[in-house]
């Protein structure tokens, strides 16, 4: 459904990504794993149009979407929830959610979407008039995901949703992702938290210094001893 082929990205002279090919299947949860600086976020930003690739292509439902402006990508119903949540701190929770629906044409606005989201995250309804900046880390992450859901995405892209959150909250968030997936949403997730992610994912890629060093069904990767090496280095 969403495919990259030999995608390369350069930051000046540095290769941030080298020939990365991934295939996100319809209604799957696909995970990109890897240590810091492996290029995971870069891959997501390239898909959502924030970064232009140096070469390679990105195809979504049969059409190329690489090099298209990010605001146009959102109209294809691919929604990127950025790393670090990026809540608009001065805006209320409700306004944060409203702006999430900006890519949806006015005629298609539907009050039930907000209703469903409030059902999924009751805490957001409670806090709807509070400034986003006053929420706790976990609540902000929920708001970030909820804001993405307001656009009624077909593909939801998440960048490190567990970053800096307590284990119990991470569990909650991952549970929500499984629920969304069960409702038919395709999810592409970048995570450092490998084991937990593999548990909910169908398929995973492991990225190291800009290249894919391993891929496979999540079940298989979970038992792969080399996965630890990818994170903690080869024993020498």
């Amino acid at each position, binding site marked *: 459904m969403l495919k990259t082929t030999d995608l390369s990205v350069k930051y000046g002279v540095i*290769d941030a990504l080298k020939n990365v090919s991934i295939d996100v299947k319809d209604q799957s949860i696909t995970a990109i794993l890897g240590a810091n600086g492996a290029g995971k976020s870069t891959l997501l930003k390239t898909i959502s149009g924030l970064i232009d690739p140096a070469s390679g292509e990105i195809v979504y439902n049969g059409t190329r979407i690489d090099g298209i402006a990010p605001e146009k990508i959102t109209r294809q119903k691919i929604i990127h929830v950025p790393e670090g949540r990026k809540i608009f701190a001065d805006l209320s929770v409700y306004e944060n959610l409203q702006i999430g629906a900006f890519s949806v044409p006015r005629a298609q606005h539907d009050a039930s979407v907000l209703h469903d989201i409030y059902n999924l995250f009751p805490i957001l309804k409670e806090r709807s008039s509070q400034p986003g900046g006053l929420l706790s*880390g976990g609540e902000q992450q929920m708001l970030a995901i909820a804001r993405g859901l307001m656009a009624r995405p077909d593909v939801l892209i998440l960048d490190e949703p*567990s970053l800096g959150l307590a*284990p119990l909250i991470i569990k909650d968030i991952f549970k929500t992702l499984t629920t969304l997936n069960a409702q038919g949403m395709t999810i592409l997730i970048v995570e450092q*938290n490998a*084991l937990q992610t593999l548990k909910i994912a169908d398929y995973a890629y492991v990225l190291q210094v800009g290249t894919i060093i391993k891929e496979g069904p999540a079940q298989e990767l979970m038992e792969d001893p080399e996965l630890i090496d990818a*994170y*903690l*280095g080869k024993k020498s």
Partner: protein
Amino acid sequence: MEKLLSIDHVSMTFGGLKALDDISFDIHRGEIVGLIGPNGAGKTTLFNCLTQFYKEYEGTFTLYSDAPVDLGTLKVTDVIDHGLARTFQNIELIPDLSIIDNLLIGAHASTKDTFIEEVFKMKRATSEEARLRKKAEDVLAIIGLTAMKDFYVKGQPYGILKRVEIARTLMSDPTLIVLDEPAAGLNDQETDDLEEIIKIIQKEFNVTLLIIEHDMGFVMNVCDRVCAINFGKFIAIDTPAKIQANPAVQEAYLGRDDDA
């Protein structure tokens, strides 16, 4: 072993979040210590507290360069006078100066000539300048950058820049150098070169190094000991091999597995 730096019960809060939570460990003279931890673990925050960029921390850093000094009592610009030099995560060089001039900035704190002496090119200013240039050339020779000394920093490959930044710290005759992700963005060859260089300067300049690094291969090869932290909390400090095998460290990196 002689203690060089002791970190005692350091905590730091960022907008309600505990970025550092009661961290304590010591660094001995002459060793190379790695500091590891997943994204957001608090490594750079610890560096920024240590080098006094952040002042609002609790706990103490005591440096035993000569007379023991509580770094918290110093201004950020005075830290270097006590033998503590650092690099930055994103290269912080002066792009529009030559490599050798960038090194001279590293010697800023140790030059003694006054502004008036500079303006009128008086003896002390010119001889200081000559002395430092000589010193910079020596450092560049050891790092292997002599041929490039007059090149502008702008436009040089990343690997070179990382080396220049390390070379700059050497200009202030430091006892302790802290490096923030020196291998980030380097390719395999450059990383290997960097390992060599770090070992060389550790010997040649008789310095102690504390290194934040994500490239575990690099950490394993270079460091004598490795300290792991996560969520601002100390996990363990030990030899590289033992850290690698430590279940708590593995959990920190790979995520918590509730069923295991």
